[in-house]
């Protein structure tokens, strides 16, 4: 079984691109376009990593993060954001995240950061990570 990644993001183009890119590298990807959908997906099947957008209509990233932490203390969550304020980032850090990167940077740079985050996490998943070269 390969690493399971959950992308929670209301921007479909973005999650489709990142999702396809991750899949093309052998990750199992599931996408959710809202917080509710994302939380449901976590309950359905626990992912290895969650990429979570800060700003979404309805339930925002911080609220989802709190919800996730309520049940899954250990689940790695990487916050993704285009415009998050410093306060929000600090707050997210307090609640507990594995990483953070800005969507505002070049997408290729975001890809590099995702890659880096995954590489850092790979230690614990390596044996399972058949899909990744």
């Amino acid at each position, binding site marked *: 079984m390969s690493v399971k990644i959950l992308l929670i993001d209301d921007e479909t*183009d973005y999650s489709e691109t990142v999702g*396809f*890119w991750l*899949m*093309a*590298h*052998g990750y199992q990807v599931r996408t959710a376009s809202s917080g509710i959908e994302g939380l449901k997906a976590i309950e359905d099947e626990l992912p290895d990593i969650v990429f979570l957008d800060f700003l979404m209509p309805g339930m925002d990233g911080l609220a989802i993060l709190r919800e996730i932490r309520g049940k899954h203390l250990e689940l790695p969550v990487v916050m993704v954001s285009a415009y998050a304020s410093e306060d929000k980032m600090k707050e997210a850090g307090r609640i507990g995240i594995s990483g953070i990167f800005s969507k505002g940077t070049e*997408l290729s740079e975001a890809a590099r950061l995702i890659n880096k985050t995954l590489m850092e996490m790979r230690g614990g998943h390596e044996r399972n990570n058949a*899909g990744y070269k």
Partner: protein
Amino acid sequence: MREIMPVTNKEIIYHSKFFENILGSMIDILVVANPDATVRFVNHAALNALQYSVEDVNGIPVGRLFDDNDLNFFELIKQLVTNGELRNKGINLISKNGEKIPVVMNGTLIRNEENRIQSIVIIARDMREIFNLITELTQFNEELEERVDRRTDELRVAKEASEEAFRKLQQTQAQLVQSDKMASIGQLAAGIAHEINNPTGFVSSNLKTLNEYIIDIRGLLREYDALLQSCSHISDESVLSGVRHIEEFKKKIDVSFLLNDIEQIFAETQDGMRRIGKIVKDFKEFSHTGSDKPEYADINNGLESTMNIVWNEIKYKAEVKTMYGDIPQVLCYPQQLNQVFMNILVNAAHAIDGKGVISVSTRIRNDNVLVEISDTGSGISPEHLPRIFDPFFTTKPVGKGTGLGLAVAYAIIRKHNGEITVNSIVGAGTTFTICIPIESGQLKQIIRG
């Protein structure tokens, strides 16, 4: 059932064979990916290029076929997702054994009715052959450029050499023309000097003798005067009338003035003869016929005699200030250096409008003698300055200057292993500085034979 079935098994096989043949015959690489980014189909060309077998490749993440370090891949996905297609993008594929294969790729993203990704179709053209050709072409081009550069360099060197040769030829010609002219003038001057020298000699000597005679005759006159004084006491009428007659004659010719004037006339005439003698000497020194070997000469003397020769050109134009330093004799062709000084002095005089100053100085510096000739003339414009030593370059009206003077000066100074430099400020004046080695090794060798 059979009647309403639109397609028979045979037909299905026929059609699938038909498409298989088409895809199999494609030269371009074809890769079809599933929505989960796994490989669904690759054609024969793709297997060939990537060196995978069908079993190897089906179902693997499509990213494995691309250069993972190439973040272009991410951009391509982004374009595919947002635009649904991409055209003519360059990227590297990776073969099974890790070889990078540069391709130009086109892609289309097909979505289903729910706008979900259904499949991705990638067609890529292996660019290795073309890139090799381009590399070869680039190399060839570089070689060609190098060759052109080399040829250009060779041509430039050849051009410089021929320009240098031409310049030398012009200089030689100028020098020939000038030295021919100078030789004729020199001969003429020497002839005149010789012709004048003889009469000058005997006129001077006669004047001296004449002066002695006159001194004697003045003595005699004094004796006669004394005699006249004593005769005035004699009461003989015939003696007295004789005395009166003489007194009247003395009055008539104003003897006292005459005697004074004779002295002055002698002084003036002797000065004139001295000057004629000096001119003759200068002519001789200037022309100096016969000697074409270097010799030790006093530059200050040379400057002085040259100045006398061109004095007529200078005297109404400039006041000449000289500062001759204490310099040793210089091994040189004196007459040629005189020619240089003459050319520069005449130019200096010509450069002065109205009245100005020409300063001539000599001094010693290291093993050289420096001669500086400055004028307060109109100066040389910056665009003319680099050309003034060029043969036949002149700013004087046609017929006035040959454009040879400074070219010859330059050549002569070079012959002495010296240097001639010029400094000029328009409206303020010009300074020529000549630097001549006291003993040039080259000239020393000529003397030794």
